[in-house]
């Protein structure tokens, strides 16, 4: 990363046309600068620690002024996150962070606004705000820590818990069919959808970078271990021995291959969905994260450990369309260009007045 004379960060800086509206850092920043003085209060061993470390390590890369970064969260273990970052932050109420962030991002294009949320916070009580923010393509980056459980309230099942889960509120097993957050957000017209894993720092960093580079709403699901109430939920993706065989790393423009020596791959199946095949088989698909039609990205989202023995991680979708905030600000600019800056007294006088002497 190099800082140019005008204070903007040149090479290496994460950038897009919206991020360019955010003031650049005067000098390169460090991870430590992004670390607040607050004691971290998660259970020892919680996956949130790893995510925090990765985010703190990644933020300097953005190359923007720290005071122009804002993290907004809801309620949940995960939502404590903003306290640990030395940026502006708000720990709001359950499920509403995307709405609050929408107001902030829309009125302040000079800020980089991030949302931290959990699977309960964002998909249960906050599901509507999440999806509307995504369809509007508001310029916010939403990091959803999916531990498939309600951590803070001590272990009830969540909208991503598997059917039959025994929890405090479902001693006979849960009945609800879970959401697939990727399918859900793709169905809601999201322009950027990605997935990563708490413990894979390098991969998570690459996904965060892609989200930051996306000029609009980004949704990042992060598989996160809750070692107290749902320990080991993602172990198969973490175990060094097995993980390559069950993880499909999505890369735009690359064939959808995985497994030892990338021996396995993905092709279209008879039912219109995707199926696993040998990398040498005909019809192996190439990943297109930029395809405007999300159909194939959606089909990819249906690959899961349970159904196909493989879980894709990485960027499913990344398409560039105007963001809500840039359009709104453009409308304001156009109005001001056309009509000049509003004149209060002539506004309130209106067209029909009369005078009494």
């Amino acid at each position, binding site marked *: 990363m190099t800082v140019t004379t005008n204070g903007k960060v040149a090479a290496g800086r994460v950038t897009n046309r919206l991020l360019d509206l955010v003031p650049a850092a005067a000098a390169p920043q460090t991870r430590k600068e992004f670390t607040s003085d607050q004691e971290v209060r998660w259970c020892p061993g919680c996956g949130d620690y790893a995510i925090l470390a990765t985010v703190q390590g990644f933020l300097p890369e953005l190359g923007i002024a720290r*005071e122009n970064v804002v993290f907004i969260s809801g309620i949940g273990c995960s939502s404590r996150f903003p306290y640990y970052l030395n940026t502006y932050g708000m*720990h709001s109420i359950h499920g509403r962070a995307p709405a609050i962030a929408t107001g902030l991002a829309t009125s302040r294009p000079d800020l980089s606004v991030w949302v931290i949320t959990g699977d309960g916070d964002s998909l249960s009580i906050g599901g509507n705000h999440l999806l509307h923010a995504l369809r509007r393509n508001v310029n916010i980056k939403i990091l959803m820590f999916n531990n498939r459980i309600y951590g803070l309230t001590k272990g009830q099942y969540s909208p991503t818990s598997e059917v039959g889960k025994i929890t405090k509120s479902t001693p006979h097993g849960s009945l609800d069919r879970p959401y697939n957050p990727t399918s859900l957000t793709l169905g809601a017209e999201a322009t950027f959808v990605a997935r990563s894993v708490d413990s894979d720092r390098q991969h998570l960093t690459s996904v965060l970078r892609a989200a930051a580079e996306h000029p609009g709403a980004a949704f990042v699901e992060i598989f996160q271990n809750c070692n107290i109430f749902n320990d080991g939920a993602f172990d198969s993706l973490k175990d060094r021995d097995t993980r390559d065989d069950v993880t499909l790393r999505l890369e735009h423009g690359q064939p959808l291959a995985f497994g030892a020596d990338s021996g396995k791959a993905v092709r279209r199946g008879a039912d219109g969905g995707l199926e696993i095949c040998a990398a040498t088989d005909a019809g192996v698909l190439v990943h297109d994260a930029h395809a405007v039609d999300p159909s194939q990205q959606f089909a990819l989202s249906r690959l899961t450990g349970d159904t196909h023995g493989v879980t894709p991680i990485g960027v499913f979708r990344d398409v560039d369309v105007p963001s809500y905030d840039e359009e709104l600000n453009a409308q304001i600019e156009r109005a001001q260009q056309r009509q000049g800056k509003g004149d209060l007294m002539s506004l309130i006088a209106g067209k029909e007045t009369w005078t009494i002497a």
Partner: protein
Amino acid sequence: MSEQVREQVRERETRRLDRVVVRFAGDSGDGMQLTGEQFTSETAAFGNDLSTLPDFPAEIRAPAGTPAGVSGFQLHFSDHDIMTPGDAPDVLVAMNPAALKAYLKDLPPGADLIVNTDAFTGGNLKKAGYTADPLTDGTLDKYRVHKVPLTSMTINAVNAADGVAGAVNKKEAERAKNMFALGLMSWLYHRPTTGTEDFLRQKFAKRPEIATANIAAFRAGFNYGETTESFSVTYEVAPARMKAGHYRRVSGNLALSYGLVAAGELSGLPVFLGSYPITPASDILHELSKHKQFGVRTFQAEDEIAGIGAALGASFGGALGVTTTSGPGVALKSETIGLAVSLELPLLVIDIQRGGPSTGLPTKTEQADLLQAMFGRNGEAPVPIIAPRSPADCFDAAIEAARIATKYRTPVFLLSDGYLANGSEPWLLPLRESLPEFSVEFATAPNHDGPKGPEFWPYLRDPQTLARPWAIPGTPGLEHRIGGIEKADGSGNISYDPANHDRMVRLRQAKVDGIAADIPPLEVDDPSGSARVLVLGWGSTYGPITAGVRRVRAKGLQVAQAHLRHLNPFPANTGEVLRSYDRVLVPEMNLGQLRTLVRSEFLVDAIGYNQVRGMPFKAAELAGVLEDVINQ
């Protein structure tokens, strides 16, 4: 015009009146609101004082021809300062039997009644619920009935107009009948007509033939008045002697919208409105969304919670965050209002009250959200409350709400209602220099010496106002985190300390209570100084109460009047004022919500007069109640 007709016209008496109440009524599709609005415009242009009251069903187009589908518009105008849209109409224009059915009960004997006879067909009578024709069965004996074949005369007039034939179909021609009615009424009350013709030309600029048709109908109505024998008198209401200045007519929602734009300018903050449509608040969203040139951002959210959430997010970023809604929306916003109390950020929560509970009577007025505004949140979460008293006052009230919100870093409730929202009155336009300036200062530097050097403490309060500093993102060195969990006094760090919680609860309360020192004392209007009864009101009842008080005083009785603009906290002298009268009467369009508050706070045995009818009080009704209390 034949000689004979001229004769009649000359013979016709012109009566001078000091005030008149007219009501236009017809099917929802008949354009009665537009007709009433335009008659009001003519009246405003003429220089009368005036007050209006629209009344429409909750359905978009309730079933044609039925009383449920009737839409009405009432206008009270006068040669002097008036306070209400009038208790009962002097003239009712009934475009169909349903309108007659719906409103006849409001008409005092002897009133003028203009009916569109063309609409009194068997089918329409049945739809209206008449078993016999009221035009002939004696139902209308007590009224001065003017039977006018409005529809057919309109069609004839339109067809005769130049350049209309062929271009305007029958349905379109017929639809101009409201302009015929307007023309007739304009003639009857000597209203100036050029404004209306200009208006029609502008409105239908894209279809000039429709403009022509409507103007033809309008003129035909006017001329019909000139020629018919049905009207033996016409009426004149002289212009009112009003304070000198420039005037416009304004409804409450419009004035409120302008007040918000003005508050943005005066405070130097960009306005951000996060809202979800709901009757009768939606028009504020509509109005503000037009004014992008003022940098006003409007955001139609997915629901009320997102609306206030976005507004609060914008406030965090240094905007003047505003959310508009009605009662059911306030209920949904409760949790976020609590968050705003805890975050201590400025936020305007504007509640245009309507009939409740639940969906209630969406298009009707009520004052039953006061206690919700006061108490409708978990925990001790005090929020200042302000209520405008008239449509034009919504402008000033919005500015005052913004002043308090920004100065004290607090959400503020503004309680308007359906009556103020849609009612209108002449507004003496303020001068720029008369508007209060209230600059807002953001924090720019650390405010505390920490162990490792200067720090920023987001909850270190101004000793005077108890407001905390407002440090907005983008300010270097003031990075901080806030949230809805209890915070340590000063540093704002999360704190579960019992004593700290008690202190913070009391500090938040003290901050709001302290506003009492920053608002004008409660003014009492007690001309003789010897009244023993005080009538205390709040919000939109100001007009009817004042009108009632005038009537009582006109009879030589003594009564004092006070009207609360600030409901939380009350002005500092409120207790003193209440205690200096033998009896305090509190008329409210609810079951006694302000009464509950003043009884609790001042232990004054206030008497309630309560009507929950979805309609404003009538002056006569209040005068009667006042007399009873005075004579007790």
